């Protein structure tokens, strides 16, 4: 193992991470301050939080009632035991998501093919680079906080052990992600080959289902039961799940703090062996499949026949319709774009799952309004906001084709706007239908909620598209960013303000639902006012879209 090679490869990955965040780098060598700033911030936060909590624990809690220390000890212990498993779970989620986002780029796995680098070096560097960034930064913060707190509470040795176990847990998660990455490339390749022409739809449906399950499980676990309940669940169940290697670090901590040192050492050795095993499995898989290229997906066979589409009949020119059709294909075939569909669906599904039990008797005003927001207003708004901001940058480096083609700013904006609104309305139909069926509502409520959602879909599509054009980012390496970070934030604020302006006329109606003596007009009257505001916002931002598109097309590669 050439450690210099490993360090260089990790450095390259880290630099690519900084490029993703939009930092302009003109030299290969990184600024040490820039590279380690987040670690430093995490360290300071850990120190401050640890000091404040520790100080409060000693002076405010223990000094008042010393018996409380004994009462609180099990809680402190359960937090400590669950830390490695907690770190493992969020590191897995984070590293897997970042790998999925990079799935469109296949160059990184090709490095050993043309450089004198072994698969061991490549695999180790990939695991370490995966682990760096958010997982390691958060560990620095948590570990510092725990150690400082422990110095007040008097359990410094277990705290140091827990910190080391957290690093090992992040390493475990990162190695697992590396294995998952290689396997999914190999597995999906085999699936595509066997499914032939249906491969595109298999991939689309498969990716959607995977993302959905992943997000639902994640949000349900993390937010569904509450953080403390979750931590306590980990602490109590991990001993029962001793046969699962991923919880061995937590069991090790439990045994060390319970005084069963021998068992603690056994689980420590087992954990280390498991990490080494994961590493060698990753090396073996990389050696076998690292350079594997997925087979070509054949979409059409036989003679080519031009199709006369529906869009022409809707008043789109052939140029505009071509762009819409191309983008429709992009959003069903590019895996990194499929995540855009997930947000609105998860937003509905997670609370839906949690509230299904209460659906029958759910009749409180606040519950109904929340549900209306979740099924009607939010999904379509989020789809419009995210898709509008990304639909220009998704062109990537192939954007030269748009620059060199006879697109006017008007036809360009018309096509893109149509697609964003279309997707937002499709989401509204799906989530609104689900909401209407599950939570029976009056026709009047159904009508105003639907109209408000349509207004939001149109207005936010125009707002986000204007920002998407202005802030488009066509870089694709190391992963497509599609919009620059500052414009993404601007878009979020602009969409929030626009949404608030559209929904503002409904405030009297909402308040009258809570305040018994307050009178209110028919909600459809307020909806009509919302409609006027939405039309105004849409028109203004549509014009801004055209103006931004003119600038984009005229400046092109300048």
């Amino acid at each position: 193992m050439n450690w210099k090679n490993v360090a260089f490869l990790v450095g390259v990955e880290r630099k690519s991470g900084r490029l993703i965040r939009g930092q302009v780098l003109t030299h290969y060598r990184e600024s040490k301050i820039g590279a380690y700033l987040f670690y430093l911030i995490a360290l300071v936060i850990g120190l401050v939080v640890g000091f404040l909590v520790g100080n409060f624990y000693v002076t405010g809690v223990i000094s008042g009632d010393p018996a409380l220390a004994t009462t609180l000890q099990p809680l402190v212990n359960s937090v400590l035991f669950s830390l490695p498993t907690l770190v493992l779970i969020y590191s897995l989620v984070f590293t897997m998501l970042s790998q999925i986002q990079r799935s469109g780029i296949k160059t990184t796995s090709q490095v050993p093919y043309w450089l004198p680098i072994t698969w061991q070096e490549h695999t180790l560097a990939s695991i370490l680079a995966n682990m760096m960034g958010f997982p390691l930064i958060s560990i620095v913060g948590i570990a510092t906080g725990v150690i400082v707190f422990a110095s007040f509470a008097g359990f410094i040795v277990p705290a140091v052990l827990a910190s080391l176990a957290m690093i090992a847990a992040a390493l475990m998660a990162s190695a697992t992600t590396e294995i998952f990455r290689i396997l999914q490339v190999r597995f999906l390749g085999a699936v595509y080959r066997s499914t032939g022409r249906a491969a595109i739809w298999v991939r689309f449906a498969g990716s959607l289902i995977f993302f959905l399950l992943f997000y639902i499980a994640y949000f349900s676990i993390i937010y569904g039961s509450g953080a403390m309940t979750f931590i306590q669940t980990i602490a109590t169940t991990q001993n029962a799940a001793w046969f699962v290697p991923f919880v061995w670090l937590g069991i090790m901590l439990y045994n060390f703090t319970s005084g069963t040192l021998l068992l603690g050492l056994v689980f420590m050795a087992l954990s280390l062996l498991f990490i080494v095993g994961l590493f060698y499995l990753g090396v073996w898989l990389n050696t076998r499949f690292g350079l594997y290229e997925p087979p070509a997906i054949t979409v059409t066979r036989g003679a080519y026949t031009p199709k006369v589409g529906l869009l022409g009949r809707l008043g789109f020119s052939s140029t505009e319709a071509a762009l819409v059709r191309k983008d429709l294909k992009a959003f069903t075939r590019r895996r990194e774009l499929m995540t855009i569909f997930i947000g609105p669906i998860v937003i509905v599904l997670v609370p839906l799952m949690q509230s299904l039990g209460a659906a029958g008797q759910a009749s409180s005003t606040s519950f109904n309004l929340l549900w209306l927001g979740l099924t009607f207003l939010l999904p379509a708004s989020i789809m419009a906001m995210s898709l509008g901001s990304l639909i220009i940058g998704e062109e990537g480096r192939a954007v030269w084709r748009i620059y060199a083609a006879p697109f006017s700013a008007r036809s360009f904006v018309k096509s893109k706007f149509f697609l964003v609104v279309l997707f937002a309305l499709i989401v509204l139909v799906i989530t609104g239908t689900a909401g209407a069926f599950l939570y029976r509502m009056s026709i009047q409520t159904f009508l105003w909620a639907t109209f408000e959602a349509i207004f939001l879909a149109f207005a936010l599509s125009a707002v986000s598209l204007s920002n998407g054009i202005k802030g488009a980012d066509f870089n694709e390496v190391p992963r497509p960013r599609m919009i620059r970070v500052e414009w993404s934030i601007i878009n979020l604020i602009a969409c929030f303000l626009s949404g608030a302006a559209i929904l503002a006329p409904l405030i009297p109606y909402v308040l009258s639902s809570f305040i018994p003596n307050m009178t209110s007009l028919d909600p459809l009257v307020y909806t009509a006012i919302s409609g006027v505001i939405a039309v105004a916002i849409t028109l203004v931002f549509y014009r801004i879209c055209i103006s931004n598109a003119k600038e984009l097309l005229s400046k092109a590669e300048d």
Partner: protein
Amino acid sequence: MSFNAVELKNVTKRYNEIVAVDHVNLTIGSGEIFGLLGPNGSGKSTTLKMLMGLVQPDEGSVTVLGLSVGKDPVALKRMVGYVPEAPRLYEFLTGVEYLDFIGDVFGMQPEDKKNRIDEYLKALQLEGREGDMINSYSEGMKQKIALISAFLHRPKLLIMDEPLNALDPRSARIVKDFLQELKRQGITTILSTHVLEIAQAMCDRIGIMYQGKLLALGNMNELRQLAKLPNSGLEDVFLKLTGTGDTRPVVEELLK
């Protein structure tokens, strides 16, 4: 030649302190095959991009097919076929879907589009792979798709940066012969290349760029006279004119 296809008047383009194109004056006649040569970073690609309106000049004016670039870019782009140096295609589309997209973008009639796509796919030996997604194509196959997309709508002017990159010999020959045929039909071609044999064999006139300047311009004989190498090939002429001819010391240094 009835009119000038391209006119560059005193065109300059700067990128910060770097002058990519330095006061270039150039006129290319209709129906001409014009070759733009020069070492890496000499300003060829920037010049071609300015003809397409993808890059705006800092000084001077660019007129293409009688239209001032930037005045009516949509009308101009309709008449031009363009192949950039490293054409990135929509890799999630199949070859035939990509060409169908191009046909629609340029407003071709369905029957005409179908016939031409079929002809070009057959000619450049892409039949049988046209239904595969482009991400599985070799670089040569991608280049063929990029070339077809430039020819498909029968443009009046072709602007091509390294058009024969990665092509197999048969396809390269077909493209060269095809460009000669287009020339006979009055279609102008401007191409940049590093393969001097191609430029010598194909181009009516050649412009040699060096450090952003148009160093030499003319047909082969005129260039030979300029270089004072009456019986030499384009390679010697090019190296002499760009002052990069004496390569022996570099090779000797490398061998140390």
